[in-house]
C-alpha cells in the first residue's frame, strides 16, 4: 500500500472538517436584506426646496451635534458642494438651474437608507441593520472601525471620527430611528421643513404619490423617481424638475443591489472548502504513489534541464 493508513486518515480528516466548515458556512450563507413591505420612506420633492437649511438645523438639534462653524441661516455655504460629515448628517447643496433665469435648485443629501444596503453587506461585524421600518441603523457596540462601509457606499454617505483615538464611530443619518420613527414619529428634518419638501409615509404609498405628481404635472417634473430602483431601491427617494445628472446624483449605479456584487464570490467559498482538500489530497497521494513506484523526482528535472 503506497500511502500509510495514518496519513490517509489525516488527509481525509482535514478534508472532512474543511467540508463541514464549508457546509456551516453555506448555512450562514448570504442574507437577503429586502425590508418589510410596510417599510417607510421619504419622498423629497426637489421643486419645493428653497434652501432655508431648517432641516440641517433640526438634524443638528435632535442628534445633539455641536453648533456649526457657519450658522444655519448663512447662505454662503452654498458656494461649495458639501458632503455629509461627522457633525452634519445631512447637507443641502445648491445647483444652478439649466433654464436661464430660473431659481437655483437645492438638493438635500443624506443616507438613502437603501433596501439592500451596501454598508450592511460590507460590514464584517454586522454593525448595520435594515430595520422593519426602513431605516438603516448603526450599532457602535460592535464596530471595529475598518471603514469598509465607507468604501462600499455608492453615495459617499458614512463619515468617520478620525480624530477620536478611543471611541471613534461611523456617523450618518439614522432616519431618527431611535428617537422618533421606532416610536411612531417622523424624522426631524421632515417635520421641520416649512415647504414640506419631504413627505414621510409607506414607501409603496410614496411611489404612488410621486407617480401621481409626475402624471398630473408633466411639465413640472422629470419622469423619473430617483431611488425607486437605483441599487435595488432606496427608502429615500427624489423627484425633480431638472435632470438628476445636473444635480450631482450618481447616474451609473444600475438597479442591481450592491450585496449581489459579492454574492458570486462568496458562494464559491463552500465549493473551494470541499473541492480543494480532495484535489490536493489527491495530488499528494499521487505524489506518494510515484515515490513508492521508484520514479524519483530528482531525475526528472535533471533530464528536463539537460534538454534545455
Amino acid at each position, binding site marked *: 500500500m503506497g500511502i500509510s493508513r495514518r496519513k490517509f486518515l489525516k488527509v481525509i480528516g482535514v478534508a472532512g472538517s474543511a467540508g463541514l466548515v464549508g457546509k456551516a458556512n453555506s448555512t450562514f450563507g448570504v442574507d437577503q436584506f429586502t425590508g418589510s413591505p410596510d417599510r417607510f420612506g421619504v419622498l423629497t420633492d426637489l421643486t*419645493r426646496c*428653497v434652501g*432655508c437649511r*431648517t432641516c440641517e*438645523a*433640526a438634524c443638528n*438639534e*435632535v442628534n445633539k451635534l455641536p*453648533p456649526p462653524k457657519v*450658522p*444655519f*441661516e448663512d447662505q454662503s455655504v452654498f458656494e461649495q458642494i458639501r458632503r455629509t460629515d461627522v457633525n452634519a448628517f445631512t447637507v443641502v447643496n445648491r445647483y444652478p438651474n439649466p433654464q436661464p433665469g430660473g*431659481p437655483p435648485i437645492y438638493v438635500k443629501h443624506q443616507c438613502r437608507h437603501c433596501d439592500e444596503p451596501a454598508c450592511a453587506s460590507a460590514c464584517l461585524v454586522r454593525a448595520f441593520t435594515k430595520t422593519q421600518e426602513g431605516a438603516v441603523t448603526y450599532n457602535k457596540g460592535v464596530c471595529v472601525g475598518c471603514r469598509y462601509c465607507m468604501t462600499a457606499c455608492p453615495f459617499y454617505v458614512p463619515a468617520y471620527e478620525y480624530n477620536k483615538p478611543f471611541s471613534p464611530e461611523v456617523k450618518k443619518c439614522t432616519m431618527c430611528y431611535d428617537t422618533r420613527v421606532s416610536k411612531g414619529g*417622523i424624522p*426631524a428634518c*421632515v*417635520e*421641520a*421643513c*416649512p*415647504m*414640506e419638501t419631504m*413627505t*414621510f*409615509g*409607506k414607501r409603496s*404609498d*410614496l411611489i404612488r*404619490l410621486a407617480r*401621481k*405628481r409626475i402624471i398630473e404635472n408633466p411639465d413640472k417634473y422629470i419622469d423619473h423617481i430617483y431611488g425607486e430602483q437605483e441599487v435595488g431601491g432606496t427608502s429615500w427617494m427624489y423627484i425633480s424638475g431638472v435632470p438628476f445628472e445636473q444635480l450631482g446624483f450618481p447616474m451609473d449605479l444600475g438597479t442591481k443591489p450592491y450585496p449581489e456584487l459579492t454574492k458570486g464570490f462568496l458562494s464559491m467559498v463552500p465549493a473551494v472548502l470541499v473541492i480543494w482538500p480532495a484535489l490536493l489530497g489527491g495530488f499528494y497521494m499521487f505524489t506518494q504513489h510515484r515515490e513508492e513506484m521508484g520514479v524519483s523526482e530528482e531525475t526528472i528535472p535533471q533530464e528536463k534541464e539537460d534538454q534545455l
Partner: protein
Amino acid sequence: MFRKTIIGAVSAWVIGVLIVSQATEEKETSSQNVPEVCTLGTLSKIYEPVLFSHGQHTLMAEDCATCHHHSEPGVTLACKECHGAPFDPKNLNMPGLKGAYHLQCMGCHQQMSSGPVGCTDCHAKRISQQTGMEKK
C-alpha cells in the same frame, strides 16, 4: 405692550368672525366678513406669528378661490379647516398646515417674482438656532 394689545384684539376679532361664519350654512363673500389682517400664529414656536395683510391680498386676487382652493364654489374656508397634521397616510398629497401656508404664499410670490420669500421676511425669529419642532 401696545402691540400685544393690538394682536390680541385682532385675534379675538378673527376668531369671532370664524365662529360666526361657521354657524351659518351659506358662506358670504361680501366684504363685511372678509378679515383685513390675519394672524397666523398657531404653529410657530420659533418664529413670531405672521401678520398677514389679507385685505391687501383680496384686492390683488380676482377671486377668493385663487387662494381658498379645492373647495366648492362660493365656499371660503380658512386654511386650517382642511390642512391639519401632515403626512396623513390616506391623503399624502395634501400638505399639513405649515406646509400649506408656505407652499401657497411663497409659491405665488416666486411665480410673480414679487413678495417676501425669505424666512424672516414674513416672521421674525423668536430664538436663534432653534427649529419648528415640539420642545420635549
